[in-house]
Structure formats: C-alpha cells, structure tokens
C-alpha cells in the first residue's frame, strides 16, 4: 500500500497505543510492524512529527541493565486530537467499506 496513504492511519494507531500506556520507540515500532506491513524505520519519523505537533511528549527513564529509554506519552492535545480523528476515521472507513461492497447500489 502507498506509504503516504498509510501515514495518516499509522499516526492514529500510534496515538491509540499511547492512549493505553506510555511506550518507548522500539515498543511502538514492534507493535505496529506486528500488525501492519511497514518497514520498521517508518515509525520514528511519525513519532517525531507527532512530538513536533505537540501531540506527544517524551521523558527518559533509567532501565536496569541497559541505556535509559525514551518514553513517549500522550499530551492533552494528543488525547483530544486522537478522539476527534478516531471518530472521523471510523465514520470515513465505514463509508468506504459500504462503497466498496460488491452489491453497492447508488440509486436509493
């Protein structure tokens, strides 16, 4: 699938994961590539973009037996944006699904 096309949806998936819990970059990358077919390297530009837009904030946390990890967490703006875009996307996806149905008839 076209990467530009996927990008917006990927952003939404990242937000939905971070809504549940804070994650570090690698976790997010693993989570997405487990469910969606993308190159692993694609996630980091998205994280950076969301942070630039103020939807995410970061903090570092020491880990036992490893380098400190950079955690991403949702800001208030991130929460609001996620809820808004989630409902918009679901509405849109439902419509597209309907339109792509084999027996779809425009004349009603």
């Amino acid at each position: 699938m076209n990467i530009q096309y996927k990008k917006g949806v990927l952003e939404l998936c990242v937000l939905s994961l971070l809504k549940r819990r804070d994650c570090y970059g690698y976790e997010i990358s693993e989570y997405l590539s487990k469910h969606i077919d993308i190159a692993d390297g694609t996630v980091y530009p998205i994280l950076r973009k969301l942070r630039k837009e103020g939807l995410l904030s970061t903090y570092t946390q020491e880990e036992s037996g490893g380098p400190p990890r950079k955690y991403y967490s949702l800001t208030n703006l991130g929460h609001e944006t996620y809820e808004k875009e989630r409902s918009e996307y679901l509405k849109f996806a439902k419509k597209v699904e309907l339109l792509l149905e084999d027996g779809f008839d425009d004349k009603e």
Partner: protein
Amino acid sequence: MTRNEFLSKLADELKKNNIGEIDDIISEYDQHFAFKLADGFSEEEIAAKLGNPVLIASQFESIGDENNSRGRKAAAIIGLGLLDIFAGAFFILLSAWEAIMAAFSLCGAVIAFSLFGSISPWSLIPNMPRLAEIVFGLSLSSLSVLTAVGCIYFAAFIRQLMRSYRRFHENTIAIASGRGILPTVTISPKISSRFNRRLRTIALISLILFTTCFVLGILVSMILSGTLEFWHTWGWFGYQAVN
C-alpha cells in the same frame, strides 16, 4: 548493511536534508538495533527491515523541520518582496495605459462635442464646413465610445490580474509556512455573458460607425473643398494654401 553503515548513511542523509536534532534521531535507530540484536537478529537483517536510509531520511524531511520551515518562509517572503516590486511596476504600467486610454476616450468626446457645437476652444479645431463637422463629429464620438469599451475590458483585466497575483502571493507564503492553500484565481476576467454581449455589440457598432464616418468625412471634405488636399484649402495646420 551493518549497524554502523546504516547509521552513518542515515546521519549523512539527514544532514543533507537539513534536519535538526540528528543525534536524537540516530540514537533511536541505534537503540532499535540494540533491541533487535538482543532478540537474535543479525545487523544485516535489522537494517533490511528498517528500510532504505535515504527513504527514511526523506520521511523526516517531508515532516518539515521547524528551523527549516522558518528559513523557507523567510526566503519565500524575501523572494516575494522582490517579485512584488516588479509586479507593482508592471501594474503601474498597466494602470498608466488604462489612464491613457481613458484620456484618449475623453479627448475624442470633447472634440466631437466641439465639432457638433461648432466651437473651437483655443482655436484648436480647424475650420471646415458644417457637414464635414457633423460627419467628423460622429466619427470621433464613435471612436470615443469604442475606446471607452476598451477601457472597461482592460480595467476588468487589470483587476483580475491583481486578484490572481494576490492569491498567488498568499498561497506562496502559505506553502512556505506549511499551511493549506486556496484555489488559484484565473487571469481571465469574469464578465457576465449578457454584459459581455452588450459591450461587444456596442464596440462593433462604434467601430463600423467610426471607420465609415471617417472615410465619409474625408470624401465629403474633398468634395466640398474641391481638392484632394482639403486641409490646404481650409488653411489647417496654421498655413494657407500657396496658390
């Protein structure tokens, strides 16, 4: 590609694309390698799964760095400023031409009025028989109307051109600062088709009237004066006929 090759290639590409906080980005990818290595993957496998560093770097670019976009905006504004000077001069030129056409139209009307009324302000109108005055007067008033129609069209054209340029100006800044753009404005002026038809009819009639009356005026003058060069006979241009 090994871990080091991948990371240095990525750093090079990011630098080339003028992306900020490169160390921060590189450390994310470095950690990615560390985690994957711990899971038992080879450096080559990990690099292959990450994707092409050139493409990854370009994804950072398309996001647009803050400093970069501010720089682009400044460059766009400077460029537009220079362009505005030229465009401004061009618009002044066009407006000047509009003013000249309007003045021409007004002059035609005044001369026609003088001819009809048989008056010669500051003795500028050469003397001629009444019939020639009327025919030339008709010709000049048609020319005046024709030029006035031209003025209306030209004014509409300048106005639309300015609008179009303004939209281009706004959109260029919007693009440079990463905002959405508005649809472009066409150069061709919007004149309602009914008004347009009327204007065209008026222009056509006045053009025909002007040419016919002009030729007719010369013919009438030749006949009335009895010579081909009637202007000598009637003492135009400040000298009398020699013979």
